[in-house]
């Protein structure tokens, strides 16, 4: 059959590329410092992607809404954070992260309540509106903050690399990974160990039934949307010292987050976690080692998953 042929070709292609990447990786190991830096870059990118993808996935799982503003909210968060730190001397990155997260969460709440809610019976309309909103936010950022990248300073305590065994480990990237893991654990506990989390999962399982047992689904939608938006905004600030705030940051991040979600499985927090780090590594090493094939390497895992396991590695819903 044709589809099984396609699958064989894809699988062969995958083996070849994974082999090439693996070979390049091993070849690069000769320079251990290079490997360390790239590994930490991968982990930090993975951590940021997780923060972005977790909210996207949560919103999709509950509301069946592909929120394409998610990349723009990340960028908006980065700009707001950079702005806070520039305007108020001495404000730490962590405070800027909190402030930006709250502001972006409020914007998300407004977007959900007053725009998406009106279109709740029209899922294509909702997706188009989120896409349109992402363009509007991107343009607004361009008007307010201009076209030049705005750097976000690294917290002073985390600037000097940690030296271990004669190698230098970039400290800030380690901190990003630690924060992403803390956020993952917190989200896990919220979803799996609280009544609110159980209500969200009930809504994902059977929305109509959840409403029939009295779960206030409409409030839940707003809460989850705000939570996802807030995390994306805070993640934008957290990524600031690595990526800075620049026009096009949204368009760079959103596709990566989408790939993560498709790879890991829509609605699965664990899938988003694993998928983020896979894509963090694939993207970082792909662009560093095989720059010509970077996009092939990036999209291949997603294509393979769609071909062989449409629900993603850990998901239940087909993408």
């Amino acid at each position, binding site marked *: 059959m044709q589809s099984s042929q396609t699958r064989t070709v894809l699988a062969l292609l995958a083996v070849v590329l994974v082999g090439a990447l693996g070979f390049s990786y091993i070849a690069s190991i000769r320079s251990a410092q290079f490997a360390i830096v790239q590994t930490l870059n991968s982990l930090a990118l993975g951590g940021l992607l997780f923060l972005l993808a977790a909210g996207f996935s949560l919103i999709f799982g509950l509301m069946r809404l592909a929120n394409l503003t998610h990349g723009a909210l990340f960028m908006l968060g980065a700009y707001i954070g950079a702005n806070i730190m520039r305007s108020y001397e001495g404000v730490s990155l962590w405070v800027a992260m909190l402030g930006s997260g709250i502001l972006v969460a409020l914007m998300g709440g407004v977007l959900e309540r007053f725009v998406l809610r009106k279109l709740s019976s029209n899922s294509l309309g909702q997706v188009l509106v989120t896409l349109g909103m992402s363009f509007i936010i991107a343009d607004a950022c361009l008007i307010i903050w201009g076209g030049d990248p705005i750097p976000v300073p690294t917290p002073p305590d985390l600037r000097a690399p940690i030296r271990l065994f004669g190698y230098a480990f970039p400290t800030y990237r380690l901190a990003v990974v630690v924060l992403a893991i803390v956020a993952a654990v917190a989200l896990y506990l919220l979803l799996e160990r609280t009544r609110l989390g*159980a209500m969200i999962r009930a809504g994902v399982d059977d929305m*109509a039934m959840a*409403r*029939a*047992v*009295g779960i206030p689904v409409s409030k839940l939608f707003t809460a989850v949307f705000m939570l996802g938006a807030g995390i994306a905004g805070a993640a934008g600030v957290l990524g600031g010292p690595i990526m800075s705030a620049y026009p096009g940051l949204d368009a760079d991040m959103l596709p990566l987050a989408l790939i993560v979600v498709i790879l890991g499985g829509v609605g699965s927090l664990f899938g988003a976690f694993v998928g983020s780090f896979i894509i963090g590594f694939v993207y970082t090493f792909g662009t560093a080692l095989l720059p010509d094939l970077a996009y092939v390497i990036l999209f291949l895992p997603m294509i393979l998953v769609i071909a062989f396991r449409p629900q993603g590695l850990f998901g239940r819903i087909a993408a």
Partner: protein
Amino acid sequence: MATDALTISGLHAYYGDSHVLYGVDFALKPSRVLALLGRNGAGKTTCISSIMGLLPPRKGEIKLFGKTVSGLPPETISRMGIGLVPQGRRIFPTLSVRENLIVAAQRQSEGEKPWNLDRIYDLFPRMSERRNQLAGSLSGGEQQMLAIGRALMSNPKVLLLDEPSEGLAPLIVQEVGRTVQRLKDEGQAIILVEQNSQLALEVADQVVILNTGEVAFDGTVEDVRANPDLITQNLGVFHGH
């Protein structure tokens, strides 16, 4: 005259363009059990969905102890005091037994003995044994108990039970019957939809028979017993003793 627990008047329901209920009227008295019977496709589930607000009626009115509920969203109707045990049980499969119950808990507790986790575990000891098990892994009978427990957690003024015996082994069906009887003894007003008319007639006070979206009969259980043709004509099956 005392207020009815639930009044349905002139209810018309549609799925898109397809007209399914044609002006259904009936009323349930407080602390009574009303058996809602009818063939496959007669419109029983549609009626239940309309009461719960899952399928908002196009025409007609539904009142709970005198307060209009038709047109309100299901979560509000649930909070006002209607509990649903849906056809096919529809427990939340990825939640544990305990979580299925606590997500449905509501603060209102007007009764003397409000339902809570402990009382549900007393009613169904198996739920207590399996409290941390995923609901999707329960047997059909256990899922039915859980669906009943979940509906009770909201301390409903009126409980809607849509074919609770469907697809269950005879022994479990008896247990469902005993549970309904026990709830009735506690004064719970119930609408019981059943294909198993024998089970329904054992506990019911009042019988409403639907036939292709219209009320074909509304009377007491005694009326039905005195006139067995009603069942054979309207249900197409005879459930002898």
